[in-house]
């Protein structure tokens, strides 16, 4: 999976989960302030990303640092790379 494929899949999954227009999923969009997502949505975001990318996020403290859509892309890309290297 290329980085752009990851970005596309993540945006699609989250736009669907949170009923957002996909155009709003720009890298600098802030989840809380711009997309109006709250701490409950963050719980479901983890579940959606785990399912979409077949990864385990669980209680990874790094997830708490995610503020923007771009942060989320970077997190998933890193996570996927770690997974591939471990294989």
């Amino acid at each position, binding site marked *: 999976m290329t980085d752009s494929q990851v970005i596309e899949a993540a945006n699609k999954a989250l736009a669907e*989960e*949170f*009923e957002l227009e996909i155009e709003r999923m720009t890298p600098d969009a802030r989840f809380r302030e711009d997309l109006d997502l709250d701490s*409950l*949505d963050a*719980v*479901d975001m*983890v*579940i959606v990303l*785990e399912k979409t990318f077949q990864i385990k996020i*669980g*209680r990874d403290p790094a997830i708490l640092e995610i503020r923007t859509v771009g942060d989320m892309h970077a997190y998933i890309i890193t996570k996927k790379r770690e997974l591939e290297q471990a294989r």
Partner: protein
Amino acid sequence: MNHRVAVTGFGIISSLGASVDTVAKALYEGRSGITVDAERLDRGFICPLTGRIQDFAPRHPLSKKQRKTMPDFAEWAAEAVFHALEEAGLAPEDLRNERTGIIFGCDSSCIAALEQVEKLARTGSTTGIGSGQVFRTMTSCVSMNLNVIFGTQGACWSISGACASGGHAVGQAADLIRLGRQDRVICGGAQEINWQSMCSFDGLRAFSSRFDEPETASRPFDAGRDGLVPSGGAAALMLERYDLAKKRGAKIHAELLGYGFSSDGDSISIPNSAGIGRAMRESMSQAGLSRSDITYVCAHATSTPVGDAMEATNLLDIFGDRGVPVSSTKSMTGHELWMSGAAQVVYTGLMARHGFIAANKNFEQGDALSSRLDIVRKTLETPPGVALCNSAGFGGTNSCLALDFTPR
């Protein structure tokens, strides 16, 4: 000073239909909402009968985020409230204040509790359960979600009083207005419909075994009754301080004159010969009504042998032989449990609107007690006038609401 209480709007999603008009038509025609759920037999149920919500297509769809925290019956309740608000002519901004509250009757949210355990088992992590589940599992799921959807800022809680939950919710809502503590209260009752929430109840052999003819299974007061049929849905009412409703030019559908409550202090499952009668007397006393003022009783009667006999005993004690027309809408809807006490007020209100009293379907032969009651066998072409709505529940909790459906 005690304030008067007006009913300015009704909303209902029931086994008889998903709008006040379809439900009114079904009540008038005596149409049953009872169906067979074959899966229940496969799962070891004695009775596969149940009410069912069909053709639920909300005119006010909720967002995915809103639905995450709501079981299906909370969605039914939200739609019923939207309908009641439309009838009342109230806009969302009219509700966004501390003088407006929400009180709903609800005593379970079974599926959600099961789902969270299944999700934990499947994912092996509590973070895999999802954000909405905790809110779906609580018995206050209805009132908390409605509060968020409608933006009310006053009372916000649910009443768990078994099968009298809906009646108590309407009664307490009226009390808050009467005491001047709220100007408007959205109230009602909601009841889930699924086999999971009914399996242990089925095991008590409390349900009808007449499943060859589902529409005749629920036969309150009939000598051949053999148990209730579980059902559900959501009923909503808009209650307002009478003078304020008048001032804003609202159409007043009824005046809620009295709310009586009592408990048997006796058996956990079997009602006694005095409990509901005390609630009825208290309700009439608060309303300043004598028994001759009551022109209709919408009975609790669920079609169980003992329960109906006890209500008949209480009715005879107060009204004497053939003292007042009586019918149980559960003959068509089945027993709507937590919702029923509120639903009966909506049903009686719809009868008043269309000028009839619904029949107690399937009443063919009275027993020693019920043959002394004035059971409405066929739809009467007269409105209910001043009515009592009874409800009673496990643990011996009773509610009686007195309403004048001809307000001036």
